[in-house]
């Protein structure tokens, strides 16, 4: 006769919280198919017009390309820097490891606007790089903490004895890493990679200072569009990005499980 471990009010608040969380996400996916230009209840009909509108818009097409290009380059760069850093933090024995860890996580605590202006100041003073490369540099710095956190958590859970065994059996350091450690870092790489990718794709507050006439990103274009037009084109974009998020969540669930994924965040 085990009693329920929580009361009805916990369930009630949680149910409302879940509705609150999902309402806008579900709503915007339906709104993307709304036939009218404005919101009406009930909707006038269903259409794919706003999706077509999104893809026919030159600014959105350019933004789509550069956003995925930037996120696609930032993700491997950030992970490639994070793997050795995480190993240095967890397995290293030099002084200043704690400081390195703190410094690597610091971009998380700095408001995006501040980071954005800092990079704007730096790049405009140095006058280097196009908007595309400036965004990649700034977003790599910004997303590094997500990758480092995931990999440090992952490494903490690994048994160094496995790698040691490989070394004892004659594997070089590099080979032991490649065949023993790296495969075990898969969940951390996946979790970190997804966070980095989504943060790079979705970033607004830093990117807004670094986009230029040639390079623009999806959040920035969506923002400009919302200010100028009132129709569900951005809802169409949103529903595609949300679908991507759902696919990623299912991927996480299959590879590591959702509750384990959180420990890696």
């Amino acid at each position, binding site marked *: 006769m085990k009693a329920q*471990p*929580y009361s009805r009010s916990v369930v009630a*608040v*949680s149910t*409302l*919280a*879940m509705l*609150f969380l*999902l*309402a*806008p*996400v579900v*709503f*915007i996916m339906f*709104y993307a198919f709304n036939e009218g230009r404005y*919101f009406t*209840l009930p909707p006038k009909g269903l259409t794919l017009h706003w999706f077509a509108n999104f893809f026919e818009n030159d600014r959105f097409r350019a933004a789509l390309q550069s956003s995925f290009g930037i996120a696609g380059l930032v993700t491997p760069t950030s992970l490639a*820097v994070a793997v050795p850093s995480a*190993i*240095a933090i*967890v397995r*290293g*024995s*030099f002084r200043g490891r704690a400081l390195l860890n703190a*410094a690597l996580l610091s971009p998380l*605590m700095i408001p*995006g606007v*501040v980071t954005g*202006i*800092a990079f*704007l*100041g*730096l790049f*405009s*003073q140095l006058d280097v790089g196009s908007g595309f490369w400036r965004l990649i*540099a700034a977003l790599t*710095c910004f997303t*590094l903490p997500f990758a480092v956190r995931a990999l440090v*958590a992952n490494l903490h859970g690994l048994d*160094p004895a496995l*790698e*040691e065994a490989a070394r004892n059996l004659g594997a070089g350091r590099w080979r032991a890493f490649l065949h023993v450690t790296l495969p075990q870092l898969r969940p951390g790489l996946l979790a970190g990679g997804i966070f980095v990718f*989504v943060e790079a794709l*979705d970033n*607004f*507050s830093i990117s*807004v200072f670094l986009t230029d006439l040639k390079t623009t990103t*999806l*959040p920035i274009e969506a*923002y400009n569009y919302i200010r100028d037009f009132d129709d569900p084109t*951005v*809802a169409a974009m949103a529903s595609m*990005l*949300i679908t991507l*998020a759902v696919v990623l969540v299912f991927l996480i*669930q299959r590879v590591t499980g*959702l509750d384990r*994924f*959180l*420990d890696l965040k």
Partner: protein
Amino acid sequence: MTIAGYPARGSSDGRWLALPALAVLGLFFTAFAVFAIVSLLHNVSGTASIVGPPSLDNYRAVVGLKLNRDITLDTLWLALQLTGLCILIGYPLAYLMARTPSRTLRNLILFALIVTFLSGGVTRAYAWLIILGNTGLVNTLLKTAGLTPLPLVHNRTGVIISLVHFLLPFFTLTLFGGLKTVPASLEEAARNLGATRLRSFVAVTLPLSVPALIAASTLTYAVALSSFLFPDLLGGGRNPMAANLIYQKILDAFDIPAAAAMAVLFLLIALACVGVLGQLERLVQRRFPTTGRRA
């Protein structure tokens, strides 16, 4: 001599592995150093060129303006209210996730939180704009029900609703990480000894979850402080927070030095607030050393 087989073996202690990170951090901190210097210089009005001599004039101008002081204080206060709301809504949710025996339910809540988290800022701000707008979902429903429509956007209400939605996954996911390390058996033991459910929660689980609660609140507060997009879109330009003020400085005047001075001050205030909360976390951690560690 270390636990790791790694460094002890070779001549190196693993410090070379930190080189790529140092390069990135170097870039990051160079940007901040340049930025601090720029904040001391002057903008030649109408151009993008920045000249010396260095002075504290920008800082004086920023602090001197009452509007800046008011909005900064207001931002600190609003972030506190938002964190409070997240605790009220997020704690029960995280608690249910940590205690439910049903894996399906836990995964369902996690699914909702992570999908919301991953579905993007502009996307969600836009969704709220349509839901809360004057002819939006909520007001259409109200009108159909014969009630008066409510002003929910271009005011504080819209900013708060949308920001709580934005912050809730940060808060709940972080709290859940700590809450699940508090053993349910302790609470059960209290109940077996005759405590009511509420009492066993208040006397056992709540105090043990304080470190995780502070960790989650600190993160939420830091993210809330730097809100930019939601006050801008849902507040209709009439409810700026500190970050909006800085952005305006760049947009209106392209005055990078003045914006940099504002940003430096804002950064210091934000770091001080987060630092105080972090100190509090360490203090509590010392009192309850074994539990509620952040995952």
